[in-house]
């Protein structure tokens, strides 16, 4: 589904990703771990299409198509959704507006009719209660005045409504207490299926106790230096990143 090939990315003149390779297949959950500054968030930002990241070489294919030539919204409509580490507050735009506009944009792109209002409301209400959010969230401006945990739940709510093919979660666990973490993890786990891929960027192993990944990658200094299964995450938790660095230097 997603193929990242020898990706080099520069931000304000300094190279952050230095030849990153990654393949994610449908049905898989990948965790990208690594010390601060390794470039973890850069990868998801580049995939989503954020400004200020210059791809100097390499390519990213999504379902065989060149992702780097697509507009930001085209990537979303193709099925890629980024859950932000710091969700943006959008004063004056109600959550419900965003959800409906986004869902209809997808449907229109697929040549479908816009969703009828009652059907939409039913869908949203179900997902809202799954995320343990009350109806008032829909009437509030997107993320405005939300607590850290509420913002993250709101990101997952959007995923549940929009049902992406590739869900990317950038440090979704940051700023969550244990209860919020469980709700968020349940939401993410409910997204797992044979057709969908999930790419999680995380600093801590904690999240992976709730969402067990198929593959774990260690990103150090702009490259993936080690990949393994969920055991790798446990090892990182126990031993830190030092040994991986030494191993990769050897």
């Amino acid at each position, binding site marked *: 589904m997603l193929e990242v090939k020898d990706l080099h990315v520069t931000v304000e003149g300094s190279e952050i990703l230095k030849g990153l390779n990654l393949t994610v297949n449908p049905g898989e959950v990948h965790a990208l771990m690594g010390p601060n500054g390794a470039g973890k968030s850069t990868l998801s930002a580049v995939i989503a299409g954020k400004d200020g990241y210059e791809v100097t070489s390499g390519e990213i294919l999504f379902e065989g198509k060149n992702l780097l030539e697509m507009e930001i*919204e085209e990537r*979303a409509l193709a099925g890629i959704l980024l859950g932000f580490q710091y969700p*943006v507050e959008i004063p004056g735009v109600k959550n419900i507006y*965003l959800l409906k*506009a986004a869902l209809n*944009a997808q449907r229109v*792109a697929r040549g479908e009719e816009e969703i009828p209002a009652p059907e939409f*409301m039913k869908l949203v209400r179900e997902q809202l209660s799954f995320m343990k959010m009350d109806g008032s969230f829909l*009437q509030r*401006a997107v993320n405005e005045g939300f607590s850290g945990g509420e913002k993250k739940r709101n990101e997952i709510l959007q995923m549940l409504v929009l049902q992406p093919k590739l869900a990317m979660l950038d440090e979704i666990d940051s700023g969550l207490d244990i209860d919020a973490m469980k709700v968020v993890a349940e939401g993410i786990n409910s997204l797992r299926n044979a057709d969908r891929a999930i790419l999680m960027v995380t600093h801590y192993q904690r999240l992976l106790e709730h969402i067990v990944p198929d593959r774990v990658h260690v990103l150090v200094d702009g490259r993936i230096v080690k990949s393994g299964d969920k055991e790798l995450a446990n090892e990182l938790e126990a031993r830190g990143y030092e040994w991986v660095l030494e191993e990769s230097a050897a």
Partner: protein
Amino acid sequence: MSAAHAFLQRLGERADDEPTWVAARRQAGAARFEALGFPTKRDEAWKYTDVRRIAEGEFTLADDAELDEARFAALGMPLDAHRLVFVDGVFSTALSDLTDLPDGVSVEPLTTAMRTNHEAIGGAIGRLAGVDFSPFTALNVALSEEGAVVRIGQGVVVEKPIYVVFASRANESARMSHPRVLVMAGARSQSTVIEHYAGEAGAANFTNVVSEVMLERGAIVDHYKLQEASSEDLHVASIHVEQGRDSRFTSFNLNLGGALVRTDLVTDLNAQGAETNYNGLFFVQGRQHVDNHTLVNHNAPNTFSNENYKGILNDRARGVFNGKVIVKRDSQQIEAYQNNANLLLSDRAEIDTKPELEIYADDVKCSHGATTGQLDEEAVFALRTRGIDEQMARGLLTLAFAGEVMDQVRLPVITERVERAVAGKLPERFNLADLVEVSDALEEA
């Protein structure tokens, strides 16, 4: 021949059967206007607004109000209202609808009101805005002929809005009109008055309107000025409000159209408990120029004013906001809040904003602020990552910026109109009405 003198040539075109005192008033207006001349950028109040396009224009007075139903329907709002329609300043009986006016309410064209009740009307008109306020009010006094007179009796609650439409036609040659609006709201009455300036595409007329609104004790008036003239129309408006004890005036100055638009809004809070609210929104693009000058005079203790003006400027449009609050000596226990926020959608758009407070009392709560910014690019990005295209994302965020003001609007048809104008002009496909329905359904559920 000066530009001012050329305008006054039109005086000669008047019917000469007017009462002597009316003619005398015209002469006073004409003399004042001729003495002042058109303002120039050297006048502080006109520093950023160049009126040469008006001064150098050639305008004649319309003598008919011909506009068929279809053309009118394209301009007016579908409102269940008491309706008075003027076409290039001329009253249209055919397009007006003054049936089922409640008892105690009169809504009439000025000429009729003057005929039937000339002492009351003649005494009131010009009391708040005579020849001295500006060259344009003087010109209006000299040339005004028609207008709307609304009188609401004590304690009367007028359920339907009073809807005054000033339609500007696409004429072969440019017309000018100098209408008056007079609203006399009796004690404890409640009413909504809408002044709607609507223009056909290509209309290039000059409207110079003066409105006076008088609120007696405890009266409540919601006043809407919706300006949707064509992008070639020239528009100068002066709105003067006088408030008695415990009265509440709420102004919505919603400006979408026009090539050159100047609005002055002045309120005198003359007795305790009087409250005035100024809500303003202007959305300009192309080379539109809009200038809002507002003034609140806190002439009495225990009075309240709250002003929120939002400007959205695209392309090479230019905006001016000058908001002044004056708290007189001994006007204690005043609250006065003022805010002007502007959104620049283009690097070449320009806004000049100047909030002014003059406070001569010590027990007051006042604040003022002005901000100018661009759309939040992080928010644009966030919306796009949800599949919303860039234009729509920008349109949505622009509407959101206007939201604070538009949320105060109590007439959905106006909200919809403004939203469609703002969103439509920023080409986008967002079906807002549909989402409003969903929202409503949600609230009912």
